[in-house]
């Protein structure tokens, strides 16, 4: 068989051949069954051991847990520390050591406001504080505390609760943490409130 005959003979085989004698050909049928068997096995195996193509499944016998992305709760103290030290926030006036600056910014360490009623500190952070305020027997009045709620830095309830919980246990303070729910409740009560004064706050129980 030379090259020309080789090409011609096989060319004919690939073309459609009229099935004149209605000859039954077993081979294609057998191959169809073999192929189907392989595909069946492949599909079953793939479905069973693929871990649903999850990139975090390393054991083929496990399946993803199906609860979707895990709801991660950050540590409120760690979040608070980060918020305290974020740009332009608390630390720039009250100082990283919580001592403030005598005559200008009141200290947070040992402050009766910080360690006092949660309802008051939440209000101060949410809406700010203006006018003279007495801390540890000294009067501060030159500076204005900005609002961190929706009219100012626009921190979330979780962030405000975090930063308050942080300052209430740092630098020797030993007060209870503030919960996110508490912040949310007060935010709803005091919507659109301007900066607080000492007198207003003393009225809050």
């Amino acid at each position, binding site marked *: *068989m*030379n*090259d*020309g*005959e*080789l*090409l011609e*003979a*096989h*060319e004919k*085989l*690939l073309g459609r051949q009229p099935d004149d004698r209605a000859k039954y050909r077993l*081979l*294609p049928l057998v*191959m169809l069954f*073999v*192929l189907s068997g*392989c*595909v069946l*096995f*492949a599909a079953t*195996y*793939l479905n069973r*051991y*693929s*871990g649903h*193509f*999850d*990139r*975090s*499944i*390393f*054991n*083929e016998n*496990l399946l993803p847990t199906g609860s979707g992305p895990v709801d991660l709760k950050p540590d409120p103290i760690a979040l608070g520390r980060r918020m305290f030290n974020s740009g332009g926030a608390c630390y720039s006036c009250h100082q990283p050591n919580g001592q403030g600056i005598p005559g200008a910014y009141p200290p947070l360490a040992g402050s009766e406001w910080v360690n006092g009623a949660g309802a008051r500190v939440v209000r101060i952070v949410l809406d700010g504080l203006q006018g003279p305020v007495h801390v540890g027997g000294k009067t501060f009045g030159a500076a204005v505390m900005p609002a961190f709620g929706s009219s100012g830095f626009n921190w979330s309830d979780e962030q405000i609760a975090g930063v308050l919980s942080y300052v209430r246990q740092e630098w020797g303070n030993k007060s209870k943490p503030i919960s996110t729910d508490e912040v949310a409740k007060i935010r709803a009560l005091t919507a659109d409130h301007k900066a607080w004064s000492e007198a207003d706050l003393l009225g809050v129980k």
Partner: protein
Amino acid sequence: MTSANPQANPNDETPVEATGRCPIVLLLAFSLAWLLVSGTLAFIAGVQAHTPAFMAGCPILTYGHTRALQDTAFTYGWIANCGLALVTWILGRLGGHPLRAANWMGVGALFWNIAVAAGMVGIATGSATALTSLQIPGHIQPLMLAAYASIAVAGVLAWCGRSRPSLYAAQWYGVALLFLFPWIFSVAQVMLVWAPVHGVLQAIVEGWYAQSLWTLWMAPIALAGAYYVVPRVTGRVIPGYDLALLGFWSLIFIGGWTGGRHLIGGPVPAWIPTIAIVASVLLLPHYIIVLLNLGGAFTRNPADREGGRSLAFISFGLAAYVLGGAVDSVTGIRSVAAAIQFTWFDEAQRQLAVYGGVTMMLFGTLYYALPRLAGRAWASASLARGHLILSCIGIVLLVVGTAGAGIVQGSDLSTAGVSFAAIATDVHPWLSVGSVAHATLLLGNILLAINFAMTVGCGRLRAAAEALSS
């Protein structure tokens, strides 16, 4: 189908030989030189595997070097040169025109072999990459890509400018492999050498490359040759030829997905090995179809008696190829893989595929092609017979020895109490069989090289004598 008369064209010479003889024979000569280099290194590495003190005084030939050098010489020296030569020859003949761009092929052949030689020097002097099947230093790899393109031009032009619009199976595989190698080689280069991916992704890409080199490049080389030689020698059309197309496309589409098999139990997402296992099962129809199509290779009395030796090589290669495919599917099963993975069994599988399968089919095609290229029969029939016998014995010993070592090693490793020294002692006899096998194969290949040199060289001498006397 009646058998064609082999006497119709006794020389069976086409314009392809007249135009392409020089670069094709050059590539074949290079390939045989690399085959001997690789065989020698395989023997050294084989001995070192069970007797580590062997050649320990020579820093260039420590075990890590010999293994990497052997792999490189075999893949890029032997398979690439011989495969490209024979595939271009087949594409040229089936194209029906004189071979075009033969000088491109010759230049490419020179540069390819310069690159491989430079790569070998690089590996021996310690600048090898740490990547399986891609140990050649990074700065040489672009040269290889360019040289490959230059060699492949002739085959691609023969396919583009063919005289018949239809294509035969040997052409499908031939053209596909010309284009597939640059793809897998360049992707591996970029992702592993130039801009390496990080962490476990590297192992995934590496597994893909090593496996694709075999399924998408070496296997098509072997099949292109076998699909051409078998019907020509037997004088019969391929049985079940309408299935051949399915066999071809399933190899091309599914072949590249089987790489993750080597990562079973590794730190990769479970779906990667799973898909590879599924792919190796889906490849089974490919092997069945190839066996059906090329079953004519087992014919005892072919129409073309001269081609009988080619058929003997191809039938052995075909059996090894199909067996290799079946073994791949079985060892893909996770419980089996757990017992034999990361042992010598991997090496046995690889030898069965690249030596038993691809190399034997290449030998068969080479025995068929060279008389037509050189214009005369092989110089010595007894050297050829010796090569066949030594190759068959060598491969059986090699695969059985290495697989035995793998099974012993696997069962020892699964037993917590067995010490490393005890494993080495248990594996020793099996690996000794392996090094005997390497020596046998090397001896066989020396016979082939002598026969080749006599056939090609004597033809030259005779032509020179005739030119002088006239």
